[in-house]
């Protein structure tokens, strides 16, 4: 099976500073890989490289076995890669369905006017499928709870991603119950055969959700472990570089 995303010897430097060095990782369809590491380890830089915001200084990115190079985030999006940003990137005063189709609004012939009916119904069926409970597809984002907003941001990514979803701290701002709901949602994406790369500071969450864990420290790839075959102590030791066995 071809990996959905294949990163090979990725290196990125800003001026003289190396942010990522020799990073290699394969992500398979229906797999959740967690990216962990301390602040400044290079997790966000890596997400930005995969989503087309930064271009790697050297190294190869391949999607389904074909080498790709993204000139910007739109290019990555058109290849089926979606990002759920930490700040969610939602327009608060607009209805849910307009956010779902932000920048990719559906129009109707012959005048090219917005097809709000279809956007509304597609949004409704998507949130129903994913069990994101909101009053309606026409609700304004501002009137939703943090968990509902996160749900919408993930649903949007799910709707457009054909290959890969990058999640940046999806539950950092949520309470216990909402976190559980969002984790359930993320786990359900596996059935859609999407590859998922998730950044999280919560090791509990990482162990609940991921299939594999990739550890970064100061831009260096320390190692990749199967979640089932490792434990928190090992991962913490890898993150901090301190071995206390």
């Amino acid at each position, binding site marked *: 099976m071809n990996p959905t995303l294949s990163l090979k010897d990725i290196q990125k430097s800003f001026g003289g500073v190396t942010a990522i060095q020799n990073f290699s990782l394969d992500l398979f369809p229906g797999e959740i890989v967690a990216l962990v590491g301390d602040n400044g380890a290079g997790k966000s830089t890596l997400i930005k490289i995969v989503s087309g915001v930064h271009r790697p200084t050297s190294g190869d990115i391949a999607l389904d076995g074909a080498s790709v190079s993204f000139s910007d985030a739109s290019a990555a999006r058109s290849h089926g890669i979606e990002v759920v940003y930490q700040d969610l*990137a*939602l*327009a*608060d*005063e607009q209805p849910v369905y307009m956010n779902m189709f*932000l920048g*990719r*609004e559906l*129009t109707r012939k012959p005048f090219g006017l917005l097809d709000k009916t279809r956007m509304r119904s597609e949004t409704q069926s998507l949130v129903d499928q994913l069990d994101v409970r909101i009053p309606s597809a026409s609700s304004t984002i501002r*009137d939703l709870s943090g968990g509902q907003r996160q749900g919408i941001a993930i649903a949007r990514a799910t709707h457009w991603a054909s290959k890969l979803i990058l999640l940046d701290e999806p539950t950092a701002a949520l309470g216990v119950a909402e976190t559980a709901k969002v984790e359930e949602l993320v786990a359900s994406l596996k059935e859609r055969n999407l590859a998922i790369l998730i950044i999280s500071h919560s090791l509990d969450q990482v162990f609940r959700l991921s299939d594999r864990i990739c550890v970064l420290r100061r831009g260096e790839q320390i190692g990749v472990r199967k979640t089932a075959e490792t434990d928190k102590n090992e991962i913490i030791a890898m993150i901090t570089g301190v071995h206390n066995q």
Partner: protein
Amino acid sequence: MEQALTKLRNMDLQRSVIYFGFLAIFLFFAFTLHDDGFLTSRNLTNIVLQTAPATIMAIGLVFALSAGEIDLSFGSIVAVSALSAAVAMQSGPMILGVAAGLGAGILIGAFNGLLVAYLRLPSFLVTLATMGLFAGIARSMTDLRSIPVINETFTGIFGSGRLFGVPSLVIWTIVAVIVGHIIYRNTRFGAHVLAVGDSARAAQVSGIKVPRVRLMVLTLCGATAGLAGLLYAGRIQAAKYTMGESDLMTVIAAVIVGGTALNGGKGSIIGALLGSLMMGMLNNGLILMGLQVSDQMIVRGLIILLAVAISLREIRR
């Protein structure tokens, strides 16, 4: 019942206030000025005719404010546009005058837009500066002289003419409001304008070209001010540098009373129309009541304060 009450409480106060305000002012004048001819169809038509340029500028401003920008220069654009049209028609055909007037508006708007979108200067400061700049240019264009407009086709289309008995200024207003409303509510451009004003970051990461939207809304503002200049020139059959001078406050007030948020992401074209008519009604009523110009200005200022207070109350919610 409980649900209905909650719904009522959550109803967009800012958006509904214009309807109540409009109705309240209308009824107030209808009763108090009944004997002074407020309710005559002639007077009511007059209100629409007088507010036509302001309504059209208000439409442009709804787009600008919704995108999180503001245009303060449209009053000066009106004068430059009217004068350009009048000067062009002194020796040229009507079409040249229309092109000169609209063209001046679009160019100045695009000039504002380029500075805001690509040099990242705040639109408040850019248009504050160009307001002065083009007010000066309007003054120097014809050495403060007013230029007559005698082209009858022009004054018909843009001023005193009628189509099927409907005054042309009423038709301009209706067409502009309908077209503006459809673009605002039912096109991708309208959606992008709202998204940019709501969250420029969300818009940008969604692939919307944020600078282009900013350029477009300010150009649109210039275009509507250019059209307003033509309408003034057509109705008054002359162009003068003072045209549009007093519209700044009226138009901004109309737009904000009409439910458009000062800081973007939310607005209404129909609201702006009602806001503009409300301002026209106020002017008209205050004149019929025999108030001095100074008193009219005071009342208008107070109304704007009230509108801004309600608008900000909504934002803090």
